[in-house]
């Protein structure tokens, strides 16, 4: 679905922000791009919608070469949710806001209505369609921005730090929606420095540091490379740090969340049968 081949990018001022990056994200995958501020995450993202073009190498999105594709074409394939929803909101009602994209695609009456209703339902905004986005709380405004993106019908969703500045409940809500969209078949790219979020939701991770792709692979693999993560200025999620000494002894492998760890430890302490009785189905 997304393929980067030796992608490099140098800003006009000479700063080389991306260095020889290659990866492949398959259709329907949930991938996290992780790295500290300044690691190249944002520069890479700007390639996904064609805002920046590779200085060398190339980036293919659903078969389109981003260096040649028109922005409108890419916008149908890739939807972006940015950190600050307010940069994406500008119309007087939620319904109008969500309809803006489809209208720009040249869609008409019924089809626009259908898309607005569907996108609003996917993010739980149906009852707010006539409200002004500005009267809604920040969590709901972010959902308006997400619905506007969904109404364009993109297969790929890129979420840039979707939980920063949100409280814990709002963060959980937006991630629950993301998870549901993933189940429906969307390819999800989550850009974040919250490793707990990655551990809970993503399937694979790409680690950026100093403009290079330092590491990529399934989460348990990526998160067991403390050395590379340290170089990238990242710490593995708490549960992985907690179990690190045991992992080295071959015990408790592949555990990412507190719930999984509880399951494993119950089994170790009490045996398979007993654990099954304690654990919720």
């Amino acid at each position, binding site marked *: 679905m997304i393929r980067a081949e030796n992608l490099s990018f140098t800003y006009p001022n000479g700063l080389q922000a991306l260095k020889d990056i290659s990866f492949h994200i398959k259709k329907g995958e949930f991938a996290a791009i992780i790295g*500290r*501020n*300044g690691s190249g995450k944002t520069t890479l993202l700007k390639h996904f919608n064609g805002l920046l073009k590779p200085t060398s190498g190339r980036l293919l999105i659903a078969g389109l070469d981003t260096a040649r594709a028109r922005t409108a074409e890419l916008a149908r394939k890739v939807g972006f949710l940015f950190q600050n929803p307010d940069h994406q909101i500008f119309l007087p009602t939620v319904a109008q806001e969500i309809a803006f994209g489809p209208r720009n695609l040249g869609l008409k009456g019924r089809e626009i209505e259908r898309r607005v209703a569907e996108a609003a339902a996917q993010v739980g905004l149906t009852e707010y369609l006539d409200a002004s986005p500005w009267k809604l*709380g*920040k*969590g709901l405004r972010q959902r308006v921005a997400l619905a506007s993106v969904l109404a364009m019908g993109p297969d790929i969703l890129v979420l840039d730090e979707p939980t*920063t*500045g*949100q*409280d*814990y*409940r*709002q963060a*959980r809500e937006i991630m629950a929606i993301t998870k549901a969209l993933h189940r429906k078949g969307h390819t999800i790219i989550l850009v974040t*420095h*919250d*490793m*707990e979020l990655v551990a809970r939701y993503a399937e694979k991770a790409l680690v950026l540091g100093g403009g290079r792709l330092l590491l990529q692979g399934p989460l348990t693999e990526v998160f067991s490379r403390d050395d590379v993560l340290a170089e990238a*200025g*990242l*710490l593995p*999620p*708490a*549960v992985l*740090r*907690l*179990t690190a*000494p*045991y992992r080295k*002894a071959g*015990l408790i492998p592949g555990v990412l*969340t*507190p*719930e999984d*760890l*509880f399951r494993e*430890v*119950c089994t*170790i*302490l*009490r045996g398979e049968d007993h654990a099954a009785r*304690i654990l919720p189905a």
Partner: protein
Amino acid sequence: METLIEVQNFTFYYGESPVPALADLNLTVRRGEFVGITGPTGAGKTTLALALNGVIPHFQGGRWSGRVVVAGMDTAETPCSRLARIIGSVFQDPEAQLVATDVEEEVAFGLENQALPREEMLPRIEEALTMVGIRDLRHRSLKELSGGQKQRVAIAAALAMRPAVLVLDEPTSELDPQGTQDVMEVLRLLNREHHLTIVLLEQKLAAMAPYISRLVCLHEGRVVADAPPREILRREKLLRELGLEDPPVAAFFRQLQRAGLYSRDLPLTVEEGREELGRLFAKEGIL
């Protein structure tokens, strides 16, 4: 210990709002404490920060009742400039609160406003930058600094006024995990070594819990819990109802507790957790 902050039945409504942002709130902070205050968006954290430094009621319009007393002074009857010598404030977004172009100028800003003579100013700047560990950044442009460094400049600027208490409103919300931890370590040092009283309003429970001695939970403008963080983290229902973060290490051990497999205090850090897990396995003859 001597009481430094006393909030007594304080209620505040923004403008004409029918819903109070703070509702009959009571809170006591003693000198030398490191208090964390948490709650979801809209619980009243920022309003409380503004009530402590006197912006409420001096500059922020609204209806209020009750009293806020800081170091014996009623905030409603004390000018903000006077309160600023007692309470240092640090806010969420370092970009929004920094006013100068380089670090030294930024830290000097508050002192200049107090018309402090230059020979008194320089050692204070030196002292404040040393306290937060960025003495080497003294002549750097603010533009070159990382988010975590900028936030430390903001803390230094507050410290240069030699306040008795530092009130920080989500100082790490724009920072990455490393930046967040750096700020927490600086706060710990200021509290332990320099005996500064710290009130930290923060949502990141996992990051904050190991550092604070007391956690106050706000909900709809009221204090709904006030206890050591280990005790609060035992209360899963409270965390869920308030929509608070459930730190993973504590969450795991709480599940063990419920299953009857663990009975000691909840660990707050990964290191504590490893020790407890090791103890548990050793008891069962595993490893």
